[in-house]
């Protein structure tokens, strides 16, 4: 039994890289993605460090290649329900939710969005904006084909069973309310897990003062704020639409509690400062950190440039945010000088990377272990970082543990090498 097809879970940078390499080798790839679009978390960023290059411009060509490659079969709104068998002969059962919009007929003209009477908080925009019940998560989404959110759509949730405003607006016969959820059985030779990460819920750490309406932003909320395709078209504004003049960026949010350093936050916090100074040249910025983690040949330079631009870096182990008044107070331990305070209009929290929601369930489905931090466990301790203890099942990218983009891509390539050796 030597099935040469490969199942890839997750269409972020790691999943896309692996798909393209395997398809290039002539293998058939089944790319299963939970969301209605591909691209993962990277497409939420406007720019990436250290070159401050446009993230979407960087990823879009890969997304296009994946979409146009016939060797990669894409399953959107899909998840793995069960896996049986062994390397070379797995049977994977995929649960695919209905999109209600035809990928073949829809051309992305967006005519169906406007007439839709139902709205919901846009999860992609971290709740900073709303979207209609039929829509794509963001401008420039790929594929540019909307999906219907059945929880909020009036027709599907029963509030207005006869509503068909979207279908009436569509000139291409692309909307079909009768589409059904599907269960698909796939026979594959290997499985690659590239499901990515989540960020720690800051509501779990009340000392940072995060709350509704406050000018305290999580890292992802800030990424969307500065994204040109985001809720404010890239303008840095507070919840009341005014412009902040003093900003505090707090590193290591959750580091003690989670018990590890997430490796990417010092760099993206410096990235935030670069961007803030570009948009608000006279802003006063203070970054509060325990250590500065900038490993490798190119990251330290970027951090030093941030300091040269006048951003203050304060080393402290003890930071709290008092958000009782409009002006936020960042209280911190200033060495042996005692407690000090930084008054800020805006505070950004750089939170720990945590295992993606659903990791526990997926680990059981796959029959693979998790480590003591909840990430998927691999043979790292045996100098084989992308293999799990089950032959034929690999884990790459942030699903394995916090890491930056180049490491995720290298791991994807490594798993491809292992799979090609396994299968041939």
């Amino acid at each position, binding site marked *: 039994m030597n099935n040469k097809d490969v199942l890839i879970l997750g269409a972020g940078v790691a999943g896309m*890289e692996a798909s393209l*390499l*395997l398809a*290039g*080798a002539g293998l058939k790839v089944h790319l299963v993605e939970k969301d209605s679009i591909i691209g993962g978390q990277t497409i939420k960023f406007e720019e*990436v460090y*250290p*070159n401050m290059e446009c993230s979407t411009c*960087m990823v879009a060509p*890969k997304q*296009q290649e994946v979409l*146009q490659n016939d060797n990669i079969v894409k399953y959107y709104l899909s998840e793995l329900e069960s896996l049986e068998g062994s390397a070379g002969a797995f049977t994977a059962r995929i649960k695919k939710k209905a999109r209600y919009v035809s990928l*073949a007929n829809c*051309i992305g*003209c967006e005519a169906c969005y406007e007439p839709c009477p139902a709205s919901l908080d846009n999860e992609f925009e971290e709740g900073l904006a709303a979207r209609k019940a039929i829509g794509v998560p963001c401008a420039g989404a790929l594929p540019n084909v909307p999906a219907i959110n059945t929880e909020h759509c009036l027709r599907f949730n029963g509030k207005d069973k006869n509503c068909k405003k979207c279908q009436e607006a569509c*000139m*291409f016969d692309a909307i079909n309310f009768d589409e059904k959820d599907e269960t698909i059985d796939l026979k594959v030779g290997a499985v690659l897990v590239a499901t990515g990460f989540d960020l720690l819920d800051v509501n779990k750490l009340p000392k940072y003062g995060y709350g509704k309406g406050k000018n305290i932003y999580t890292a992802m909320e800030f990424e969307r704020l500065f994204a040109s395709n985001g809720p404010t078209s890239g303008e840095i504004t507070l919840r009341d639409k005014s412009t902040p003049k003093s900003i505090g960026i707090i590193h290591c949010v959750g*580091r003690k509690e989670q018990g*590890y*350093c997430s*490796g990417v936050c010092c760099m993206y916090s410096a990235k935030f400062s670069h961007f803030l100074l570009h948009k608000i040249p006279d802003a006063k910025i203070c970054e509060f950190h325990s*250590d500065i*983690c*900038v*490993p*490798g*040949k*190119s*990251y*330290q*330079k970027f951090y030093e440039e941030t300091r040269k631009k006048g951003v203050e870096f304060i*080393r402290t182990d003890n930071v709290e945010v008092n958000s009782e008044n409009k002006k936020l107070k960042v209280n911190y331990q200033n*060495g*042996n000088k005692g407690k000090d305070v930084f008054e800020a209009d805006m505070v950004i929290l750089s939170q720990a990377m945590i295992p993606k929601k659903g990791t526990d369930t997926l680990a059981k489905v796959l029959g693979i272990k998790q*480590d*003591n931090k909840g*990430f998927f466990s691999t043979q*790292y*301790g*045996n*100098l*084989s*970082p*992308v293999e799990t203890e089950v032959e034929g099942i690999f884990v790459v990218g942030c699903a394995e*543990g*916090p890491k930056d*983009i*180049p*490491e995720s*891509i*290298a*791991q*994807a*390539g*490594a*798993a*491809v*090498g*292992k799979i*090609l050796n396994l299968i041939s």
Partner: protein
Amino acid sequence: MNERIGVYVCECGPNIPDRIDIDKVLEEISSMENVAVVKKFGLLCSNDGKKFLEDEIKQENISRLVVAACSPREHEKTFMQVCRKAGLNPYLFQLVNIREQCAWMIPDKAEATRMAIKYIRAGISRVALHNPLVKKELEANPDVLVIGGGVAGMEASLSLAGKNRKVYLVERTESLGGMTNKLSQILPHQGTDLSTIQEKIEKIQSHENIEVFTDHEVEDVRGFLGNFEVTIKNVKEEESTTNFLAGAVVVATGFDLWSSKDMAAYGYGEIDNVINSVEFEKMAASDEIQLKNGKPPQSIALIHCVGRKEKGYCSKVCCLYSIKFAHQLKDKLPKADVHEFYSDLCIPEKKDQDYFEAVKDKGVHFIWSDEIKIKKKEGKILVEYQDSNQKKESVEVDMAVLAPAMVPAEGSKQLAEILNIPLDETGFFKETHSMLEPVSTSIEGIFIAGCASGPKNIPESIVQSQAASGKILSSLIPGKKLEPEVKVSQINEKFCTGCQTCLTVCCYGAISFDEFKGVSVVNEAICRGCGSCVGSCPSGAIFAKHFTYSQLYQEVLEALS
């Protein structure tokens, strides 16, 4: 010319007819020379649309095709496929963008219509001059040259070697294993112990598809992807060389530690019992952690970041191996005082912090410090520093272990020249794209893995070599031919004066100089069609296929008329 040019205007739903008067467009372009068919269609990229186009090409005997629709980024490939299916050379086709470049940007319908007509007429005059380019096929050698027999090189060799693919592993010292030969142990959470590495060495030495050349260096590499000619020389007998062919190269030359001359400021080489990490590893490996006088040390300083400021980067592995040293010291000399002097704790992987917390539990002191000076004091060592409150402090110790920066391996510059690949400003090998292509170089077929491209730890080096292997395994398949880029540059010998300007602008090594004829020659197998040489040629001797001067000139002329 007896061409039958077919022009098809896609309505793209409401997108285009709302903003452009399509019937007027059809009327204006049908009068052009050689235009045989002019039609509109609802949605050409749909299955129906593609079938329609295919049928039209066959039934109307279309010899060149123009489609006026959306951006080439969207559907150029789609319609080229349609041409192939219909038996028409896919390069006798032009996609004119009247959606993003007209309908979506020009609010006035009359103006948008006028521009659409111009663009389409320009596209028609261009396509009339297209050549039916043909894909070439190239034989490719699947074997691989791996330079460097450390962790990364060994991993690449084991991943790549197989029944139909040979690996030539070239190592300049007398043994495989690289830097790991100098270690007492790997970090416990990164490897069970050094036996894993020993197993790999044994596997390689007995592998029938890996030829190992220890005491050898690369002397010359000529050629390109699939066709490299390699010469290696024996470092002990310089006259003794070996030649072989390979399809790809993996550079896994590792790193060196910052040299001792620059470390005199830290007392290295001047003060007794100031040693570097490699020297400590040797002591730990033989279980003899001793001072020069043979006695065990009672207080030890582990100094991180030696060279961090000077070099301008963080070497990533030193915090962790210094913590490893502290663990070893506390285990072997439980009563000893251990102090770690650091500027930042770089412990980014998911298990690293647990390892750090465990060593703190053993009573190791972590001291944030700046401006470290190491002085001699009555047979002991005085570590002077400035603490986090800017107060001057000092600690007296018996032994100081320095963690020096990782620097590029000696000979990197020469190797980069031999291979024609760039180094970056830190002197490490440069990857094509720091985010998306961490193991590729600007020369197709030459990959880099491990510390050769920058400081990293053992598992990361292993991942990178597996990634380089993955790239080679998926593109250089035994028996499969390579299909190089079609739209490449070509040099007209008659006009070439032999100035070699083009050679200086090509960053892919695709142009060579024919000494005999006195002209430059493009290697079509490696040319990527970037066009830099075309612009650089002072004699106008170079043209880019599918972007010739006449094609571009006619297109622009028509657009401006």
